[in-house]
């Protein structure tokens, strides 16, 4: 199990160059948007990853709130960081793509706004988790659960409100070559993110164990 994240990273390292070559050399240029549509192949997987880890963080935080599990807490922190990382990617590449195709980087539509809200909630989660007072982990967990609730809002935003964003059905309607390239990019990004979350969760558990060891050592020194 110790080597699982490194195996995932090795798979991703092999897939990334292949995915990028497929995007630029073997996938046709989209007729309406032109070459700028190539941003889609990494923007969408990043958005999906953000949502997946938003839900993972919310569930782990809920478990941590309920049964005080150290493992759940470590996973929640690691997943929260991944949401912020991938969310930043989505919130930067989206406006770049929008600027190229819509002529404006930010339209303030429901999907953009709810994604920005998700990102801010998880930034707040990490800040409370890191700089909050003692027992602020409960407040942080509540924030993570609130963030996870935002995920279905992001998904259904294009169905509920009028937005310039493409509908959720757009992936299913892609031509075969574009569809295959998109899933290849998902296959490159997702293992990378799982591996990074895995490594970060291990680090968090080690940090907790180290903290405990320091406290025990100080207590032993005080009683001696």
């Amino acid at each position, binding site marked *: 199990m110790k080597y699982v994240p490194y195996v995932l990273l090795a798979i991703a390292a092999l897939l990334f160059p292949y995915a990028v070559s497929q995007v630029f050399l073997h996938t046709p240029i989209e007729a309406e948007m032109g070459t700028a549509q190539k941003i889609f192949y990494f923007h969408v997987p990043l958005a999906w990853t953000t949502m997946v880890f938003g839900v993972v963080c919310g569930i782990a935080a809920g478990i941590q709130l309920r049964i005080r599990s150290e493992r759940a807490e470590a996973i929640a922190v690691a997943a929260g960081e991944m949401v912020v990382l991938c969310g930043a990617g989505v919130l930067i590449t989206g406006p770049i793509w929008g600027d190229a195709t819509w002529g404006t980087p930010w339209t303030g539509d429901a999907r953009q706004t709810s994604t920005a809200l998700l990102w801010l909630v998880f930034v707040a989660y990490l800040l409370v988790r890191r700089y909050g007072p003692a027992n602020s982990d409960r407040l942080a967990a509540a924030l993570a659960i609130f963030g996870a609730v935002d995920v279905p809002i992001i998904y259904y935003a294009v169905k509920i409100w009028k937005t310039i964003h493409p509908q959720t059905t757009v992936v299913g309607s892609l031509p075969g070559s574009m569809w295959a390239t998109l899933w290849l990019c998902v296959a490159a990004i997702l293992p990378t993110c799982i591996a*990074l979350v895995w490594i970060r969760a291990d680090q968090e558990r080690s940090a907790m164990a180290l903290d405990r060891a320091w406290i025990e050592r100080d207590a032993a020194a005080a009683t001696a």
Partner: protein
Amino acid sequence: MDITALPESESAAPGGEAESPENVKKVEGRDPETVRLKRAYESEVEAKVASDHQHIVWAYGVIWVLFVGYGMLLWRRANAQRADLERLQKR
């Protein structure tokens, strides 16, 4: 007298070929207006492709920087933890 019936030497073109409509070849794309429109279209496409490429480089660059930056952050954290563990073991 039939005035349309010109002598053979007068109806022939200076080069010696007859200028009947069947022999005139239409030259495509030589019309200045068409050429001007084509050039304008080409420069518009060129500007769009250049702009798209610039956007793509920025988008992919940002993704690369984010992931490499996070990887380095994890590596630094791991080093700091290792140093902390060594300090704890020495005491």
